[in-house]
């Protein structure tokens, strides 16, 4: 950890201004990821702007009947919110499957979206990593890559996004509300929020310098069955090898709509639109589920240690869809 300066922002405007005016500045909220990375010299901010006192910790219903989740709502509070549990159970379950109780108490909604990858090579400054040091190379390709991506990756980076929460939000068609340093507000669909690595894996989101997340909004509660299933190496406190959020509406013995998102397999929460299309209008069946699974991993590839994720995606999806359509 390098020496840094620190200030506590008392308004969104002051926070964004502080970041925009100070090169090397970063926001800090829960700090559950940033502080670890600073201790490891992976993140070296010169200035921290503490946003914990901004008035962004509320969960409110929107006029459209959806939900507005303040950027500073702690993961524990969001998971336990009665409205979330009742109307968006996929989100509550995703949150509770992540991290540990202590971390969820500290971690915030915006911080969860912006957490960095758990790629081993990203965490050690002695290793080449294009995400940490653009142009240095990707050590995970040809290295140990059990936890790495099978879809959406590039020749420069195969890291995954580790969030569970964001996977559920992706399936829920969440939007990210932000404020710019000039005071203007911008709303970004979560599906547009993350960038694939391509040749610039160091740039992970579409956020501009100083742009701050103020809230995540969810549309009105979706019809259908909501499922979050996480596959992992131990029963708790483990990142997903594969996770799936599924919101499936059936009617008249057919799937009316299926909204799917995957964690653990891609550089961002992975929304397989082709798979969703392949399911819509079809009766639930192993064959239909299998076609959807194939669509999810179409064009994907393993890198050795993570090859198992390809069949695992299909199996997990099939089971999730079967559970979601059991009453159809």
């Amino acid at each position, binding site marked *: *950890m390098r020496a840094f300066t620190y200030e506590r922002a008392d308004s969104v405007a002051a926070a964004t201004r502080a970041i925009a005016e100070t090169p090397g500045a970063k926001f800090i909220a829960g700090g559950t990821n940033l502080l670890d990375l600073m201790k490891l010299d992976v993140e070296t901010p010169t200035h921290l702007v503490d946003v914990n006192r901004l008035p962004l910790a509320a969960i409110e219903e929107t006029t459209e009947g959806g939900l507005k989740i303040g950027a500073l709502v702690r993961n524990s509070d969001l998971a336990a919110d009665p409205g979330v549990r009742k109307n968006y159970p996929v989100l509550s379950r995703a949150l509770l499957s992540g991290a540990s109780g202590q971390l969820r108490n500290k971690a915030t909604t915006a911080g969860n979206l912006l957490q960095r990858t758990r790629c081993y090579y990203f965490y050690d400054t002695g*290793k080449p990593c294009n995400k940490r040091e653009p142009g240095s190379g990707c050590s995970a390709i040809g290295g140990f890559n059990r936890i790495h991506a099978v879809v959406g990756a590039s020749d420069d980076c195969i890291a995954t996004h580790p969030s569970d929460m964001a996977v559920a939000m992706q399936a829920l068609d969440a939007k990210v509300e932000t404020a710019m340093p000039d005071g203007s507000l911008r709303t970004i669909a979560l599906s547009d929020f993350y960038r694939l690595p391509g040749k610039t894996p160091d740039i992970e989101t579409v956020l501009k310098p100083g742009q701050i997340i103020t809230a995540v909004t969810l549309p009105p509660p979706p019809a259908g069955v909501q499922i979050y299933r996480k596959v992992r190496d131990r029963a708790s406190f483990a990142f997903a090898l594969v996770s799936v959020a599924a919101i499936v509406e059936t009617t008249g013995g057919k799937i009316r709509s299926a909204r799917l998102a995957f964690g653990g397999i891609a550089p961002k929460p992975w929304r397989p639109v082709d798979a969703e299309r392949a399911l819509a209008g079809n009766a639930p069946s192993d064959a239909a589920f299998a076609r959807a699974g194939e669509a999810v991993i179409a064009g994907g590839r393993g890198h050795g240690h993570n090859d198992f994720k390809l069949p*695992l995606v299909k199996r997990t999806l099939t089971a999730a869809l079967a559970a979601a359509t059991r009453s159809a």
Partner: protein
Amino acid sequence: MIDMSNPIGSTPLDRPGGLLGQALDRIDGPLKVTGRATYAYEYRGEGEVGAPPAYGFVVVASIGKGRIIAIDSAAAEKSPGVLLVMTHANASKQGDRSSGAVPQLADDRVLFHGQPVALVVAESFEEARAAAYLVKPSYAPEPGAHDLAAAQEKASVPASRGGNAPDSSKGDIDGAIAAAPIKIDVTYTTPPQSHAMMEPHATIARWDGDHLTLYTANQMLPRGIEAVAGTLRMPKDRIRLVSRYIGGGFGAKLQVQADAILAAMAARMLNRPVKLALTRQQVFAVTTHRSDTIQRLRLAAERDGTLQAVAHESWSDNAPGQTGFEGAAMATRNIYATPALLTAHRLATLDLPVSAAMRAPGEAVGLLALECAMDELAALLGMDPIALRVKNEPTTDPQNGKPFATRALVPCMQKGAELFGWNKRNPRPASVRDGEWLVGIGMSAAIRGNPMLAAKASASLGHDGVLTVRTSMTDIGTGSYTILGQIAADLLGLPIDRVRVELGDTSFPAAPGSGGSFGANSAGSAVYDACMNLREALLRKAGLQADGAVFADGAALVGNQRVPLDSLAGDGVSADGAATPGDSRQAFVQQSYGAHFAEVGVNSVTGEIRLRRMLGVFAVGRVLNAKTARSQAIGGMTFGVGAALMEAIAVDKRDGWFVNNNLAEYHVAANADIPEMNAVFIPETDDRSSAMKSKGIGELGTCGAGAALANAVFNATGIRIRDYPLTLDKVLKAWEQTDAGQRTSLSPGRLPG
């Protein structure tokens, strides 16, 4: 002096109603949960540390093998608060590694990824760490060997260790295998593992003239002094090691590590105390780990299950210059009767961090292979796995023919079968399910050596009536404080709150420490002797005969005379004690035994394996404390669950880097992985084992535990995975290979038959 060459006979500890054996709370528990127990990094203040300490931070090599060309420390030296940057260029000359020394920053060679190459010392921890990131070594990397399988052919016969030759042979192995109707020839592999104890290695070094005090986290202090003396080339009597509380060891703190040596050297250079802790990431490579193994098992039997041949060959690896090997086949010499028995160990030299002992070295991984091979043989024979083991129960040691001191393996298996409901196990694999989960039950035998080493202790009764027991024995979280207190309290007839136990300081009488399951046997027998000598001294002082005296309720009872101890103590009475194993381990086979039973679920969709319930039954001589013994046992079993299902250091084969060097990615079992676990002890006393008639218990719980899970996985699925840990990718691979068509499409409620 207690000499265990002869049985201890009747002792005051046999008297019923004592504290020994009771489930007493840890006497150090309140100190620990209120933060008043000082761990190595936590000593402060004039009295203990002297001047305010400076803080060290280690810089480690980022190549797997090669040479340091230069270390640019200019920026670090100019960084705020920095007092010293130590590299091989300015580190003091140290003893040679071959003499048991552990030299640090000795030269420009990089032997493994993660080897310390510099130390930064500064006024604060934060300043030291920030400056450490500014130290820029440049290297000339060399290609290294980082893969055991690739080096297997080049492995050689290692030197004997601890009196155990690497190879053993009895009977005609090849002939017996050729002639037997039923046989298996299987190869198991186990990965490198990390101790992953909670407290990282840490030291505060303080010099007073030419005397060195190290507050450090070390399991075996007298041996630690030897290593420090050899490394720093100074007399042993000028070194004091203090390890009053240790946050877990599991073998990781058997050796003196870089933290102690670097802190001592820096403190001498700066003429100021220096404190130094390794980071979690550094612990993985700077210290030691358990080697991976490749184990070939050949078992041959008659159709009735009578073993005709057992051959167990094991390959492990260690760093250049290191001779220690993983004794995976050692227990195979002691467990089953067979006319032909072969064991062999081979050691490959790899450019990896140093391999050394981790909880139950040898047995822990050896039984992962042997006890699954026995399960394979039982399946092939169509025989119950317990019946197969009972069939091959020996009457004397299978290798050397010596008598057993006590051996209760069969009673452990039988008791466990009864308590666990073994008769409910469906012997046909893949035939029980619970929703998505395929359910299976498995068992394994447990065996672990029961050593004892020479030890000393003192006991003194103060004028305040408080009994103080001292020995350099350590408590690494096991309960040493408590059991030694119970022994002393019973022998002097005092309540536990009148006993003070002081451990972990080489200014106390020497005990070997915590390791190899010898701690309680050794230090306990020495405390026993000290307390017996103290009884005699107290009675002598009062002019009373020791014969027939009973110490109870704070008094000595001699004949019909009752003498309160307070009145006997005067200004204080002290006695020393000592104990030696004598030839007890040569004349008799000393082992502790047990049996594990596990029920697992294997998710038919994802291949995830989860423990559902587990039972261990153990025979460990007299149980000294029912609570700490149970904790030791279920802790060991939990260790075994980790070994079976998740624990593995991932090695980047390109440069030998330990990739998952943190507790987020190096998985040990979490609470949710251990739903229901119990340990039961069979009543036993062994009067040839220790003065308390107890046996070591620290490692037995993990021996065979993982094999019980692996055998349960086979029972659940019909799949035999021989490559630990049993992660879901291996299950999926087996399914995809065996019956892809049937299992790739799975939905709950329509599971394969």
